[in-house]
């Protein structure tokens, strides 16, 4: 019996290793759909999906939208500006209104931690968290894991270091949960002002210096440094951040072995990552983006009740000729 995912995907913290593997395995056959001349399969034909984005997003929203369209779902995008949200409607009212329109799924991005769970508890539709505050961004965590598995052939035993602003990062939390569940060793590295106090208790190693992290890791997942962290006094300047914590070609050259370089984007070149590294031979940053669509297709398919063992068949019945 394959375990189901439940109604919603709120975060990786509460998924079992089997459920995470199920999503990653289901994503494999969907990768190929995007390589076809006609990129469409009928798996979610007739399903209505709302992409509810209370925060600006380009990559994640487009990635979800492609995933939905390639599965033949009907989609509607709602952005915070220009909607009832900007007129002061509460999240619970938004939820009830969506419910009243009998939609099948909601993909939500929201600035408040817990917003996806809040919505999921109040509507019958499936809810997928596309990033809630500083909490989780589960599909990003999943696509990062799929990319590591593609690149290194495994996740178990791989040493992954998340670099940068861990304190405010939902990507960091989803990576941390997902990777540790699948047996990877996880570390974080960044200025102490941007690391949650006591994070060691979550089972991660903490590196105060990027050189130590590079010395230890197989994979660096370099997080975006938000400009406002400097304005709010967490770091003195972007310039100094780059000098002390920047992932540079010089620092990587001293590593005992080549490191796989990841970044969830959008990148600040010359702040958290050197262009030569981002564009270098060990960067898998664009593979992450490609995998994002496949992982999201898998999540949508599984939450809609699709049977994982039929994922291959589901995509095969599409219009594209083999």
């Amino acid at each position, binding site marked *: 019996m394959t375990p189901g995912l439940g109604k919603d995907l709120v975060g990786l*913290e509460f998924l079992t290793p089997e459920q995470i593997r199920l999503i990653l395995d289901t994503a494999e056959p969907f990768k190929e759909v995007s390589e076809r001349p006609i990129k469409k399969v009928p798996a979610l034909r007739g399903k209505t999906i709302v992409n509810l984005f209370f925060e600006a997003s380009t990559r994640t929203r487009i990635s979800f939208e492609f995933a939905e369209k390639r599965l033949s779902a009907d989609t509607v995008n709602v952005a915070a500006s220009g909607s009832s949200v900007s007129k002061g409607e*509460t*999240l*619970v009212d938004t939820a009830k209104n969506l419910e009243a329109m009998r939609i099948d799924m909601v993909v939500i991005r*929201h*600035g*408040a*931690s*817990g*917003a996806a*769970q*809040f919505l999921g508890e109040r509507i019958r539709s499936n809810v997928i968290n596309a990033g*809630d*505050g*500083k*909490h*989780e961004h589960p599909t990003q965590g999943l696509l990062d894991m799929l990319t590591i598995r593609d690149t290194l052939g495994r996740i178990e035993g791989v040493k992954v270091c998340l670099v940068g602003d861990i304190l405010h990062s*939902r990507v960091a*939390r989803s990576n941390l949960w997902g990777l540790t569940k699948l047996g990877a060793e996880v570390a974080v590295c960044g200025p102490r002002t941007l690391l*949650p*106090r*006591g*994070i060691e*208790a*979550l089972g991660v190693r903490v590196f105060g210096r990027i050189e130590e992290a590079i010395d230890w890791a197989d994979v660096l997942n370099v997080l975006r440094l938000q400009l406002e962290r400097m304005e709010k006094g967490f770091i003195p300047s972007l310039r100094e951040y780059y000098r002390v914590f920047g992932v540079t070609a010089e620092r990587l050259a001293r590593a005992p072995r080549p490191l796989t370089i990841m970044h969830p984007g959008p990148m600040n070149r010359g702040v958290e990552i050197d262009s030569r590294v981002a564009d270098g031979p060990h960067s898998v940053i664009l593979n992450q983006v490609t995998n994002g669509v496949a992982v999201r297709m898998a999540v949508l398919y599984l939450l809609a009740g699709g049977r994982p063992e039929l994922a291959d068949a589901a995509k095969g019945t599409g219009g594209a000729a083999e």
Partner: protein
Amino acid sequence: MTRPVLLRQGRVIDPARGTDQVSDVLIQDGKIAAVGPGLGAPDGADVRDVAGAVVAPGLVDVHVHLREPGNEDEETVASGARAAAAGGFTAVCAMPNTDPVTDNQAAVGFILRQSVRAGLARVYPIGAVSVGQRGEQLAEFGEMVGAGAVAVSDDGRPVVSGHLMRTALEYARTFGIPVADHCEEPTLATGGAMHEGLVSARLGLKGIPAAAEEIMVARDILLAELTGGHVHLCHMSTRGSVELIGRAKERGLAVTAEVTPHHLTLTDAACEHYDTQAKMNPPLREAADVEALRLALRDGVIDCVASDHAPHAYDEKEAAFDDAPFGIVGLETAFGVAHTELVRSGILTLPTLLARMSTAPAALFHLPGGSLAPGVAADVCVFDVTTPWTVRPADFHSKSRNTPFAGRDLVGRALLTIVAGRVVHEPSSGTPR
């Protein structure tokens, strides 16, 4: 003239006199007439057999928010006083963070008038420290005290300015009132939604470190020493604060402190799943803090229990954690929670709990009550301390329902609440005349 009331055969606990024995209590003309065995019933007396129950001074709560004026949909002086009576409280002190702020004699007089009109638990107004609670200019303590204020506080927010706190403590000495401070260093706490710790790290919520409270506790203690004024520290939540207060008391400073039932019983784990009913300020802390607070209450380092009753409309709490307001209602669960978690678990004796919930708070704020001595106003409560009951927010007399204790099985509940000799609450009769 109210009927005399004779309470027969109860376990009479009077912390003020240190007595605890089965006895009768006779209430006449609004006062305690006699306490002793085998008292005769005067003509027409309302005679109640309370054998097996506890007869004690009515509870006194020095920290409640009654939302009137301004947010009467959440609570009014009358509904709050009704909830208080249902919880065994005969007197409560209403914080001034109303809309408009209770920062002048007319506003203080209004609260008192509403309280008299309601005729339930007594409601004593607390005036603001600063005009509009803006933390700039001292409010008129003298006129507010003249109108009936029993303390001053900017609760809801801290007195940020050290200078203002100093002058408030000095000026309050003239009137013999405490300055009650909500201890929170704002630059450390701003934007925080819960305790800073592992749970906040996991939930991705901004934490409020324990140091945000402790810095202000330390400052207030130093200013109490400087000025000789009486500082009362509201809703203490950390083990560090307990340590600071303990040292201040050893030095004999006029520093007193309160703790809420929820900080004595819940930890930040209650915020799991983004449960907004567990969102309060100060936030729920860690198990070691709860332990330290319990011992401090037992030992008298913390003087009293206060509910910090903070009603909010149901739909306000129906929001993402960051967006929900701080605070929970507490008047109708305070005694049950404290009795169940502290007395039944053997941390406090029942007389000590009653002292911390009646005699001590009355003394701190110089209020009548907290005693069953013959001749004092008959503010009395009869408690059932054996029958379990379940917290059902829908049954609350408060207008609001925001509690993390919904569904909890508790032991300890008011059977009869008497204010000035008049029965203001008994569960079977619903709303009193």
